[in-house]
């Protein structure tokens, strides 16, 4: 069967990607030619992101494109919007941060956009190679963004670390992809799905799966592939760290959903999923246990992120419409609360080479009331307390886990989140109950942009927490469409 390489409507299908690609280039050029107008970069970047989000639900019709390698559906739209939301929040927090650090540069915003394009490809790719391609586009952007603080040693260290380990991870993923191709004669998820439906798993596939999961586990910061995360988050410019801790994970998860769905006929017969369960349990335990001893906020959030990926992996143990919807809802929630938390940290005025310790935010809740309130809401949400989005999303995760029969893993998840409450509350303790030490009052900067971003995060967390039904409905429907094919 010969299919035309470019189906009609392909331009509309990738309109958001095109807008981001071209917009990023124009922004970089604009900065090169008009170096004085650095203040305009963030608003322009914001407009480009909003334009991309606007085209998402305006022009796009669902379907597969580019010879069945690229799929547009409701779920990709949800994930696209999550990436765009993460990007926008990062831009909003970056404005003041970059200005303060003297790093304002068109390339920075361009890299955020191109990274978003990479993630969109991962979410939409129906072919493992497209996923890998998207992942590489994303990774290269991250290497540069993490090292954007080029005069600061920790930033350089972080970039190099992520580069070296990321290269390894990509190698694993490519090797795994090759082995998958060797076993199933295709890298297309749909073709692989048909192959799995009529064939049994072979040891070769086990090796391929382990290799793939090692690579994706690295991108997800899933224990035991997590050790890069604290160092990289600590060194990266703080808004980038927030973005990095959320968006690439979401993209990797949706790619994994497609992979697991394709393999679903053989999964009951092999115990690959118990490996995933082990990774999830390990992540929850390691992430939460180590986060307790962290004094640096960014490192603490890194370990908390490891635990949160563990929670999300609980839902991935059985790929059903509910579990996919739970993961989609959780990533949106996670984007709001984690970027919000990193955002408040990014507002602290201090030498970026030094750790951002808990002492830095002592008494912030009464000094800068809205920042304190926002960070407290993010912490409550991260620890899964009602009435925040973090609670209802975690509830969704555990609900699907119990309905899929993973009660033990859910129990471990619950126990792990009891532990997590301690270190999230410690942040609230420093915010409101601790007086700053003499001569150690860290000021917080601020701008309209940062205030706007924090407002989006807080309002989003509360709205999803109080009235989650529409989002659940949308995510549930989208997941059903995804899994029917």
């Amino acid at each position, binding site marked *: 069967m010969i299919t035309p390489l470019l189906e009609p409507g392909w331009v509309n299908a990738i309109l958001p990607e095109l807008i981001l690609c071209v917009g990023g280039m124009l922004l970089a050029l604009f900065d090169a030619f008009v170096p004085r107008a650095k203040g305009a970069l963030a608003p322009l970047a914001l407009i480009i992101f909003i334009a991309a989000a606007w085209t998402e639900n305006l022009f796009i019709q669902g379907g597969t494109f580019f010879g069945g390698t690229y799929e547009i559906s409701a779920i990709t739209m949800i994930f696209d919007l999550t990436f765009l939301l993460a990007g926008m929040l990062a831009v909003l927090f970056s404005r003041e941060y970059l200005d303060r650090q003297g790093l304002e540069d068109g390339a920075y915003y361009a890299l955020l956009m191109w990274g978003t394009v990479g993630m969109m490809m991962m979410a939409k790719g129906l072919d493992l190679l497209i996923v890998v391609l998207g992942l590489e586009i994303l990774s290269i952007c991250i290497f540069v963004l993490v090292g954007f603080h080029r005069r600061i040693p920790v930033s350089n260290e972080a970039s190099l670390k992520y580069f070296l380990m990321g290269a390894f991870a990509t190698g694993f993923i490519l090797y795994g992809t090759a082995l998958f191709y060797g076993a199933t004669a295709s890298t297309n998820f749909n073709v692989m799905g048909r192959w799995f439906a009529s064939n049994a798993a072979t040891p070769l596939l086990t090796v391929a799966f382990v290799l793939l999961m090692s690579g994706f586990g690295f991108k997800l910061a899933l224990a035991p592939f997590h050790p890069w995360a604290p160092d990289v988050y600590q060194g990266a410019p703080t808004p980038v760290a927030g973005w990095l801790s959320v968006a690439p994970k979401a993209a990797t998860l949706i790619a994994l959903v497609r992979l697991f769905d394709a393999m679903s006929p053989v999964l009951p017969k092999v115990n690959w999923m118990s490996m995933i369960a082990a990774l999830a349990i390990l992540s929850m335990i390691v992430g939460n246990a180590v986060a307790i001893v962290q004094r640096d906020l960014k490192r603490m959030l890194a370990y908390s992120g490891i635990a949160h990926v563990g929670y999300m992996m609980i839902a991935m143990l059985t790929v059903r419409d509910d579990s996919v919807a739970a993961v989609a809802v959780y990533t949106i929630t996670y984007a709001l609360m984690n970027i919000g938390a990193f955002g408040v940290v990014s507002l602290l005025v201090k030498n970026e080479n030094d750790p951002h310790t808990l002492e830095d935010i002592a008494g912030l809740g009464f000094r800068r009331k809205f920042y304190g309130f926002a960070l407290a809401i993010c912490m409550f949400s991260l620890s899964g307390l*009602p009435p925040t989005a973090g609670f209802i999303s975690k509830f969704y995760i555990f*609900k699907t886990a119990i*309905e899929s029969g993973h009660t033990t893993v859910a*129990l471990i998840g619950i126990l792990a989140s009891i532990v997590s409450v301690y270190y999230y509350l410690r942040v609230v303790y420093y915010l*409101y109950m601790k007086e700053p030490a003499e001569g150690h009052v860290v000021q917080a900067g601020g701008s309209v942009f940062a205030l706007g971003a924090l407002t989006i995060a807080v309002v989003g967390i509360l709205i999803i927490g109080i009235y989650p039904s529409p989002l659940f409905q949308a995510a549930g429907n989208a997941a059903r469409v995804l899994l029917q094919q």
Partner: protein
Amino acid sequence: MPILSTILWLPLAAAIVLAFFPRTADSAIKGWGLFWSTATFIVSLALLRGWDDAQAGFQFVESHPWIPQWGINYGLGVDGITLWLVLLTTFLTPLIFLAGWNSLKKHPKEYVISFLVMETAMIGAFLATDMLLFYIFFELMLLPMYLVIGVWGGANRIYAAIKFFLFTIAGSLLMLLAILYLAFQSYHQTGLPSFTITDLYGTMLDPRAAMLLFFAFSLAFAIKVPLFPLHTWLPDAHVEAPTGGSIILAGVMLKMGTYGFLRFVLPLFPEQTEKWAGLMITLSVIGIIYGALVAWVQPDMKKLVAYSSVSHLGFCVLGIFALNQTSIEGSILQMVNHGLSTGALFMLVGVIYERRHTRLLADYGGIGRTMPVFTVFFVIAVLSSVGLPGLNGFIGEFLILSGSFKTAPVAATFAASGVILAAIYLLWLVQKVFFGPITNEENRNIPDIAWNEIAAVVPLVVFMVWIGVRPNTFLKKMEPSVKHLVSTMQTGAESRTPVVADVAGSSLLVARDSSPARPVTTNQPPPTSNRTGGAQ
């Protein structure tokens, strides 16, 4: 206008508006809190006007779909079990603002907001007829309390706040898992997703799962009560909490635990309840005696009152797991009593602490002469807590003990010693602090209780007397619901041991109350019972 929603959201709405007040408007902030919490109380009184004494189920029911795909509703309702607890909550909150009017100096705005949010959360937990809604309010009340202890508390407040939070959250998260499992089983059996509490009552569970769920729920509530040996967070929290925090914590929040037993544990797991009632009764009796003995040796007044809470709440749990109508009615009444009398005690300890900045018994002595009005109120509160006939504490403890004697005579005998111990340690407290010579010169010139504090404590005293003299006002409204609970327990468990409904205990009260025979329509043929017992 839906009355339950009004009562529920009014404090929160007031708190949100208050957030925009300028922080320097000190009296306006306190006045705003006092005004709206009083308004909430007045609105909540409308519950009594529209109350149907004969109805056992939920009244004033409201239900709207909230997360329809999971069968989760925004469902509110109030029945005989919760009516007085809701009123207790709306009653106590304005008194806190009143009592703390002069002493509240640090961040008054955040303080008032915290208490208003807490009021909404507590009312919500009592009113919710949906499990998830209940759970959300159950946890929501932790956050403001954490802040209240942590920001306005004493020297060791951080430790106390974190301990309070971690203890409670550990229990409630396990309960969340149990709720999910239960709802899933129910969905499995009925085909309809639902989190409505009454829908889940009939869920069939295999014994092992039922036992695990029973313990998951019981753990959450036992920590909250707190039941021995899970009580260790309570003295710390109470000692460090500011006066208002202690009043709400003891007055209302602890009742979430006992209420949870009544609403969830008993009707959801009747067989397991019967099976493990012995354990719960044993723990509650240990708590009664242990709490009393530890209270006896406390050098700190507030700690003494805190441990007396452990002891008194032990009575409530004993009454619940004695599983008969009298004891459960007594238990509910005792929850209200404890809110009033311990609330008053914490308030008065706060009053004296404000003046002398010490709570050690050894620093006082003979202040009955310098603070005569204060002493009168304190002694009334103590006598109410001790269980002097004519005051509220007596009625509650009497009903609990007389009910428990039917089903658990040994436990009731031991528990009765708790009453005596309470008399010892509380009267000992009174004697040390108020009577005898003035040993400390600083105690000579303490100003007596102020107008706002009198205004806060007088309503409490009024109700102590009212419940003590006419308990029927309160009992008759809860009776149908309790009877219904006991009978569903009975049919649910198909128990071999019949639930003993008592007639003697109630008729005693009827006689004491000298009102014409209260309709004692219990589910047991009365001929054998001794109706003349009431004539003494």
